């Protein structure tokens, strides 16, 4: 089951890792994505640290690490095909992170996220 952050990221628990992407709502707000810069695999990150640069035709923004941990993989296809984020935001994952703590209970579920974006 997916969890959501207030920064409009979706989180999917997969074993002891979390897969991270952005929501359909976020991709609609951004508009056509034209550039993505991913973090290095193996990087240790803090919760809230800006680790992905994402630029649309309109503006630049960041994606933050939802939790503290280590980046274990990135979606290397994404920088060459950034439009995938608009086409299928749930398939277009950005990175996998092995969190210091595996507890995602503090994040919103689908109903909570829908209430957030109204």
């Amino acid at each position, binding site marked *: 089951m997916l969890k959501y952050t207030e920064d409009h990221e979706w989180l999917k628990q997969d074993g002891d890792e979390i897969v991270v992407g952005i929501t359909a709502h976020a991709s609609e707000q951004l508009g*056509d994505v*034209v*550039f993505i810069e991913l973090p290095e695999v193996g990087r240790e990150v803090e919760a809230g640290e800006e680790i992905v640069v994402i630029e649309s035709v309109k503006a630049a923004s960041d994606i933050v690490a939802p939790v503290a941990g280590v980046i274990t993989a990135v979606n290397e296809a994404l920088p060459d095909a950034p439009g995938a984020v608009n086409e299928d935001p749930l398939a277009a994952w950005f990175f996998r992170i092995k969190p210091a703590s595996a507890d995602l209970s503090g994040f919103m579920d689908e109903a909570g996220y829908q209430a957030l974006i109204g």
Partner: protein
Amino acid sequence: MAELRRTMLYDLHLSRGAKMVPFAGWEMPVQYPMGVLNEHLHTRSHAGLFDVSHMGQVILRGPGAAEALEGLVPADIVGLAEGRQRYGLFTNDAGGILDDLMIANKGDHLLLVVNAACAEQDIAHLRQLEARGISVEPVTDRGLLALQGPEAEAVLARLVPGVAAMRFMDVAEFDWQGATLWLSRSGYTGEDGFEISVPGDRVVAFAEALLAEPEVAPIGLGARDSLRLEAGMPLYGHDMDGSTLPGEAGLGWSIPKARRAGGARAGGFPGADPILRELAAGPVRSRMGLRPEGRAPIREGVEIFDAAEGGTAIGTVCSGGFGPSVGGPVAMAILPAGLAPGATLWAELRGKRIPVAVTPLPFHNPSYKR
């Protein structure tokens, strides 16, 4: 903040699912559900319909209107033939640019189209011509549309027979179901196309008639900006302002020999001394194109350096973004003149220096029907 103004097409934009944003005091569509990228590409391959009713339309009427306007605009207006249009600049005493505009000779009057953000100031500026017996008449009862793209001619000719005979920068009046359209074959996208002034009570019907044609999609300001950027066209307030000399802005071409030193009607416009001095000596700085390496857009405000590390900031990006037809980022900056095409400079982006190649403008070659 003052209430945002709405064009006559406001409800049409909403009905088409437009996302509306404030722009120059107006509430305008920035994009439709198609999205900026596809709207841009649609305009380059088919035909895009833009609402540009926020721009100012002004009529100048009276004997000697062309001579009088040459006192404010360093262009050849006296020599502008009836049925033709020309690009020009309002200049200030320091030689900077107050606005850019289109001037059409419609026989018994001149029709000017000015930027929305500057319209009020431009009209006040023009009112000084009233002392010379020229009437200054802002047109407030018409909407303004732009139909742009390689299929614009075929589409418009279906509704308004005869327009195919017009050539780039021609102006003419045509009848559409009893409404008098003011047409010019021009635009702001680098594509062939038309700007069409329509009586206010018919503009929605005319826009709907165009949108009913299979080639036509409504296009917002987002794609308008990327289209004009690829076409190397400057945007007032970004690529030029009251402190930019025409030569610096890359607009020296709009000032013909007749208005330059030694010409038949040399000078006689605000800022003539610094402007003509700059044109005679050649500009010290000039607006140029930049192609950044990689995919990261280099946007307005990014500093340009002459070295990969250290060095000096030699300019700032005035317009920049992703060029959908180019398939990568494109930018413009005012930089020291004489940089060779292909020369490498560096843009400082998020603390990193990105190589950028100096590139002649435009990035995308226009398809005007000359």
